[in-house]
């Protein structure tokens, strides 16, 4: 591990930025780094030295839940300042990524439509965007994943690709591929005999986690689905510019149009926490249905709350109330073993493990915390064999 500063790898689909537009994005990355390294540690200090005592004085015991920690922390000026700044950094991140895209929205759409025919793109204009994506704009991206401004629009995808890099402060690799890279590396190490020939990535967004499966399993046919057309158009242009064939299609992971028993491997990357209680059941059931017997389901997420200290849970839960992630909390409290079993996975015990990050070339904060989910150095993987 070194402290090398790495910038995102340039590819043909990525919007061009002027000097000042790029400087604005760099400022946001530095702002987030400042919050994580300089202001975040003070939260523990104020909790221990002045906030927790107020709860203890009143209740004669320490806080035990997210809500109880919140009762005293939300009153603390350091927490207020950190939260206010973190929320602002998130807004500035999207804004800085939007500016060059708004300027070039027509050219980006034209360019994506003309991208070489590598893999394929199948859109479904009749697909209904699920309510859990339209009720609020998830993680505060104005317009969410799905909003389209013009014909053949890729704006939301172009904004997302850049914003993810800024959000992760480079900690997910030069192509934001760490979740896919880490899972592929884990699979090859733990299951060297596993040679999937058909792979499905659900909720693929711009395909940043999808592409490692194409490079990692050269003989496999890789499919990727998402509900949002602008993401898929951009994802297809992005993958094509890298010469990596992926078959993208606009589908809701709750009701997939692929046949039963047709995939060896079904994966998702930070998809589950952006759904709902009903949707997550439908999704796991669909995973079971489309998997071949003996096939593998793997969902990459951030770790469940179980076993975490109340204070750490409170901070880790920040996104639920503060970053438009309405299902974040519930998704981290689910009985994942029962979920798999009830969805048809009854032959094997579900997997719930921490998988090390494949990308180790940049400095890491080594924590999972509000505003820094790429910094853990590990990913939580939930899965099961059919």
């Amino acid at each position: 591990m070194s402290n090398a500063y790495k910038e995102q790898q340039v590819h043909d689909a990525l919007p061009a930025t002027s000097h000042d537009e790029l400087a604005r994005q760099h400022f946001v990355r530095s702002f987030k780094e400042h919050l994580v390294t300089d202001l975040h540690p003070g939260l523990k200090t104020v909790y221990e030295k002045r906030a927790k005592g107020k709860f203890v004085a009143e209740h004669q015991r320490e806080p035990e839940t997210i809500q109880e920690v919140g009762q005293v922390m939300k009153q603390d000026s350091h927490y207020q300042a950190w939260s206010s700044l973190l929320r602002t950094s998130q807004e500035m991140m999207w804004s800085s990524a939007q500016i060059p895209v708004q300027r070039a929205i027509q050219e980006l759409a034209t360019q994506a439509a003309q991208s070489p025919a590598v893999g394929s793109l199948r859109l479904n204009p009749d697909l209904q965007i699920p309510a859990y994506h339209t009720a609020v704009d998830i993680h505060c991206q104005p317009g969410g994943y799905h909003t389209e401004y013009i014909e053949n629009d890729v704006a939301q995808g172009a904004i997302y690709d850049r914003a993810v890099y800024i959000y992760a402060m480079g900690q997910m690799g030069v192509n934001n591929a760490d979740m896919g890279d880490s899972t592929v590396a884990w699979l090859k190490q733990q299951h060297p005999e596993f040679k999937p020939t058909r792979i499905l990535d659900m909720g693929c967004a711009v395909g940043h986690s999808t592409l490692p499966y194409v490079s990692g399993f050269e003989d496999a046919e890789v499919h990727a689905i998402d509900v949002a057309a602008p993401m898929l158009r951009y994802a297809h242009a992005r993958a094509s510019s890298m010469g990596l064939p992926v078959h993208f299609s606009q589908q809701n992971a709750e009701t997939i149009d692929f046949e039963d028993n047709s995939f060896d491997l079904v994966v998702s990357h930070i998809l589950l926490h952006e759904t709902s209680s009903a949707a997550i059941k439908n999704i796991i059931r669909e995973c079971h249905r489309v998997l071949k017997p003996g096939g593998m389901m793997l969902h990459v997420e951030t770790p469940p709350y179980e076993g975490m200290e109340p204070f750490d849970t409170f901070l880790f839960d920040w996104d639920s109330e503060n970053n438009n992630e309405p299902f974040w909390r519930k998704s981290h409290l689910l009985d994942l073993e029962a979920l798999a079993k009830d969805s048809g996975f009854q032959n094997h015990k579900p997997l719930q493990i921490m998988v090390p990050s494949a990308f180790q070339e940049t400095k890491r904060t080594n924590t999972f915390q509000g505003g820094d989910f790429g910094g853990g150095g590990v990913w939580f993987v939930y899965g099961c064999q059919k």
Partner: protein
Amino acid sequence: MSQEEPEVTLQRKAKGKRPYYFSDPDVDRLLSMVMALTGELSVTRDRLDTLERVAKAKGLFSSEDIEQYALSDADMEARAARHQTIFKEVTRIIVGEIEDLDAKEDSDYSAVVSQVENDG
């Protein structure tokens, strides 16, 4: 943006109620503006940094030339005057209140509204 295509304005505010953290949400608003200003300052500093690097690469001048450049007293006086102009702009709202006091101006604005509304 090509001539024939209409200009597109992206949605800038994320759908969903924005949380505020301080007991007075104006503190959040002010903090957000301070960070936006800090961002623009950083952008300007980055541009100056690039300017110095380009100048050096093109053999025009280097960062050392800037460090070693000695301002004359007249240069510094002109700069100091510009600083005062900036301060006057920034602290306008504070100084303005004092100016009202000095002018013994009647601060009852609603009385003025009442007057102009009812003078005919």
